[in-house]
Every structure is written in structure tokens, then in C-alpha cells.
């Protein structure tokens, strides 16, 4: 069993107006096999948390810690974090011209596992994972994310999640821009990865819709760079009914 532990995390970014603090003391513990939903209004810092865990250079950790099984994640480079078992399904996956999906998937798998995957089983694994996510076989020959629709990009993120088998996955608004069929396909993929790998999942979302398909064990409400409230799945139901107004009201007063 693994544990991803975030303690009193403060993160800032540089803007034209100067340094701006986005995360103002986030504390979260995620164990293998658990699904944590992070919900909150736009601008509350949800995506900043996701990018900071992955190590995006734009975000500066000013204090606090992130550890995985006691190892200091903040000391690791972006690629080292991925090899240690962290995976970020990005909100806006990047197009990488000139690099085919096939080449990319094999290169990444080799880097993560420390050895090249067995050619025959690998090709079969990729093909069957693509089929389950209803990704056209032709995508394997296309350049990474190039010309993919928003929904296709999200499926390809989940394809990687299934193939790379991380210990912890952070899904950054994976549900945004998906129609109901695509949402179901993508959710099934996450659930498969969850079951087969005993993965810990941090599911970041603005809407409760995806929680009909991926059942969280814990729900955390993010407001203004902090966890404002946490609870079980029933908290999501309450948000569904009442929205975020209750949390925003004091800020407006």
C-alpha cells in the first residue's frame, strides 16, 4: 500500500502584477485504492494543485510538503515523479508534432518501467486498451494529440493511465468538454485502472456529473486555495443540490 501525502502546501505563480499565492495551505492524504474528489468553483486552485503535484515549472512551492511513501516528491524532476508512479491526466493535453502515438507510448512505457515492453504483448495491450476506450486504431499512427478533438484527447489521457499503471493518478477536469457517451467511456477506463492497479485517485472536477460514474470515497471542497470542507460522497450530493454559494458567501460579505 502506498500513501500520497500533501501537507500545508503553499504555491504561488508569477504574474504580470507580481507574485500571486494560489494555494494557501492544502493538506490531503490519499491511500492506494481510494478515490478522492476535489470539487470547487473556478479559480479555487484545483488545477494548480494538479500541476504542482506533477511538477509543472510555472508553479512555485513556497512552503509545505508532498511525499509519496515518505519520499520527497518536491525534490524530484517532472520525469522522476512520473517514474515514481505519479500520473497527471491533463486538462489540456499538449499536441506534440512529429511524434507518433505509437512511438510516444512505447518510449514512455520504457521510461516508466525501466525496460522496453515485450513487443508482442505490448502491441496487443495497446490495441485492446484503445478498443475499450473506443479510440480508432488509426490514432496509433497519428502524432500525439495532433488534430484530436477535445474528447479524443481526454480518451488518450485515460489510455495512458491504463497502460502506464501509476500508483497515483490526478485527473484534472477530465470530464470537461465530454458528452455523455464519452464521459461513460472515460469513467469506465478510470474504474478499470482503479480496480486492476489498486490505484489512488485524485479526481478534480467542477461538476458532480462524473461522480455518477466514478464513486468517490471522499469529497473535498476547494475554496480560495484551501480545503473548505470535506466529507463522504453525500457532500457531493449536497453540492449538486445547493451549488458552491454556501462556501462563497463569506468571501463576498
Amino acid at each position: 500500500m502506498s500513501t500520497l501525502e500533501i501537507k500545508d502546501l503553499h504555491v504561488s505563480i508569477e504574474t504580470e502584477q507580481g507574485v500571486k499565492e494560489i494555494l494557501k495551505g492544502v493538506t490531503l492524504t490519499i491511500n492506494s485504492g481510494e478515490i478522492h474528489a476535489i470539487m470547487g468553483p473556478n479559480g479555487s486552485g484545483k488545477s494548480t494543485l494538479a500541476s504542482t503535484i506533477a511538477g509543472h515549472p510555472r508553479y512555485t512551492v513556497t512552503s509545505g510538503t508532498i511525499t509519496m511513501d515518505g519520499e520527497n516528491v518536491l525534490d524530484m524532476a517532472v520525469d522522476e515523479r512520473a517514474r515514481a508512479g505519479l500520473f497527471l491526466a491533463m486538462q489540456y493535453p499538449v499536441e506534440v508534432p512529429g511524434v507518433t502515438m505509437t512511438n510516444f507510448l512505447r518510449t514512455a512505457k520504457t521510461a516508466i518501467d525501466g525496460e522496453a515492453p515485450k513487443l508482442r504483448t505490448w502491441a496487443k495491450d495497446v490495441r485492446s486498451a484503445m478498443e475499450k476506450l473506443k479510440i480508432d486504431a488509426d490514432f496509433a499512427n497519428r502524432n500525439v494529440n495532433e488534430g484530436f478533438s477535445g474528447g479524443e484527447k481526454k480518451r488518450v489521457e485515460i489510455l495512458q493511465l491504463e497502460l502506464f499503471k501509476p500508483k497515483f493518478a490526478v485527473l484534472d477536469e477530465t470530464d470537461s468538454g465530454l458528452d455523455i457517451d464519452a464521459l461513460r467511456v472515460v469513467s469506465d477506463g478510470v474504474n478499470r485502472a482503479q480496480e486492476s492497479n489498486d490505484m489512488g485517485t485524485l479526481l478534480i472536477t467542477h461538476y458532480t456529473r462524473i461522480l455518477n460514474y466514478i464513486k468517490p470515497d471522499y469529497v473535498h471542497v476547494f475554496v480560495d486555495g484551501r480545503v473548505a470542507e470535506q466529507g463522504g460522497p453525500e457532500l457531493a450530493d449536497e453540492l449538486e443540490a445547493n451549488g458552491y454559494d454556501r462556501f462563497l458567501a463569506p468571501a463576498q460579505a
Partner: protein
Amino acid sequence: MTKSASAEQAEQVEGVEVGEARISIPGMGEEGENLATAHEETEHTHGGLGESTTKAKSGGSRADRTTSLSVADFAVPTGREEEWRFSPLKKLGRVLSDAATQTPVTIKLRKSAEGVTHGELALAQSPRGTVFSAADRAAVVGYSQSAQADHIKVAADTELTEPVFLDITGEASGHRANAHIVLEAEAHSKVVFVLEHRGSADANLNVEVIVRDGADVTVVSLQRWDGDAIHVGQQDAEIGRDAKYKHVSVTLGGEIVRLNSNVRYAAEGGEASMYGLYFADAGQHLEHRSFVDHNSPRNSSNVLYKGALQGQDARTVWVGDVLIRKAAEGTDSYEKNQNLILTDGARADSIPNLEIETGLIEGAGHASSTGRFDENHLFYLMARGIPEKEARQLVVRGFLNEIVQAIGVDSIEDTIHQDLENELEIAGF
């Protein structure tokens, strides 16, 4: 190609559409181009890393440019001329003077093959000079100072499965070397010529490619010069009826390389593809100019040059001229240049010039983009566990691979991949 949505029957004269409903393309009148630019990608320059310029049109018409085989028609350039304004003329003086060869480059046919002959042609001996006409000072002095030209001829109907390699070797750095090579592919022959330049010289080398009717010719010009070599050259081709011509220029070595690759058509039904790959390191000046002269109807052309730059004062220039003359109805043409700037201190110039003198064409477009290595690409790949160095290589290789693949000869592709690895090692990628 867009057709009129009108339900009216198009007017026809002898099977050719005329009148208002005829085929046209947006922005075109029969008088020529109405828009400054056709469809194109936007140019990217990202804060402070490298510089670049893109311009859609410059100077006068390409149709007005002097071409001649007489040295008297070309003055020594001053640097103000459109065709010389990017070039380091001080150093190029050594190959622009009307000077004889000091130490010749050796030109060797690597392997003999059935149907291929290697002979010589004197200055006025046909077919030498039937396709080639110098378009600048460098080309004309190189031509007239090459008393004997190498003539490689492929007999009619010969289909060669192996490439014909010509090893062109500079034997003395700083020594002037002039040469002229005539590659002649007779009707319905099929051949891949590979011109492999190595060693060092102040080389002024012109190539004349005669593609007879129905022939299928590829010319791969590999510039693998030593670091102090200078190479100027004009590589002209004329494409026969229903013939195919592919020209691939790969420039990796040399201090200054300035190549003009030109194409025109002898009849109809010709297909031209012109590819270029260049990788400039610190201090290198690599300049490629392509000119497609659509001088007759119903021919096609596609031009794609891609370059990578790294290191202080790494410099590349691409100027792509396409001229669709009044007579060239039914032309289909496209040209594109893309540059990837990997480090600070490098500069890429990219200038597509498209001139269209008739609206009755299938299509014409140009695009140019110069971007720096994108940190977002890097983050995405690294977030999947791929180490930084490997991620950079993946992107650069991926970017240039389109051209390498276009060569279509496995053995050459492999050696170019190796060269690119070495190039990437230089900047510590």
C-alpha cells in the same frame, strides 16, 4: 479548389470551362493574386529566444530575374541585391570571383550499374546548358570556369533499384573548386541520384538535371562537408511530360552553404516535390532557395523545407519562390517552410514568395512558421516519465523526420538519423 455553387451549366469552349462559372480560387482574378497572402500558418516568435522574419512578398517579379550563361551579365554583388541580402558576402567573395579551380573536387561514381554511363561534356556541348541557366553571379562563374562537366546518363526505360551514388569530395580547404554535373534521365527511366558532399573546399558546384518524358527521378543532395567548407551551387531541373522529379537537399555540414534549387517544366503532367532539411550549429550559415517556375499548364509542385537551429549565430535562410505564369493554367502548387529554434542566439529567416498570373489554377498556397522548442511539449513528455534529453530528441527528430522519410532510401535515412543524433549531442540535448 472551389467550384461555383451556381446551378447553371458552365460554359465550355472545346471542353474547357470559360465564363463566370469557371473554376477559380478565392482571392484570385484572371489578372492574378488579389491578396497579399493566401492561406498560411501564422508565424510564431516567442519571447526573446531567437529571432525570425517572415515576409510574403519582396522585390520585383521572379520572372524579371536575369538568367544567362555569360559572366558579363552578372556584376559582383554588393549585398543590396534581393538575392544576396541575407548572405555573408565577405566570405563568399572567394567563390564569387571569376576564378579558375585551384584544387578540384573529386567526383566519383561509387558503383557502376547497367544503363548508367559516366562521361564528360565540354562548355557548349549539348545537353549541357540546355536546362541550366545561371540565375546569379555564383552560378555563372562556376559554370564558365568548369571546362568539362561530369555527365551521368541513365538510358531510356532503365529502372534502377539501387541509388546511383556520386561522391563529391573537397580535397583542399580554402582552395577554389568549380564543377558542373549533368544528370540526364532518358524517357521512362527511373533513378535515385545521391550526391554526397564531403571534405572541404571553396566549392562552386552546379547541377543540371534533365528529366525526360515519363521519367521518375530523385536527386538527393547531401551536404556533409567539414566545418570550414564553403559551398555555393545552383541545381536546376526541367521536368518532361508526365515525369516525376523529387529533389531533397540535406545540409548538415559546412561553414557556409548556399544552394538554389530550381524547377521548371518542359510540357504538361509533370510533378515536382522539393524537400529540404537543414540543421545549423553555432556559426553556420545555411541558405536554401527554391524556385518553382510553373511555365506551362497542368503541372504540380510541392515544396517543404524544415530546419533546426542551435548555438550562437547559427543562421538559416529559406526563400521559396513560386511563379505561376499566365500560361500555367491548371497548376497545383504548395510551399511550406518550418523552423525550430532550439537555443538562444540563433536566427532563421523564412520568405515564401508566391506570384500568380492566372486565376485558372487548381490551387496555390504557402506557409511559413518559425517557433522555438516548446516547453509545453517538454513538460508533457516528461510528465510521462521520459527524461528531458530524450524528450528533446524525440521532438526534434519528430519534427525533421517528415523530410528524412521523404528520401525513400533506407540506407540514407539511417545515416541521416545518426547525423541528427550527433547534431543533438553538440548542444547537449
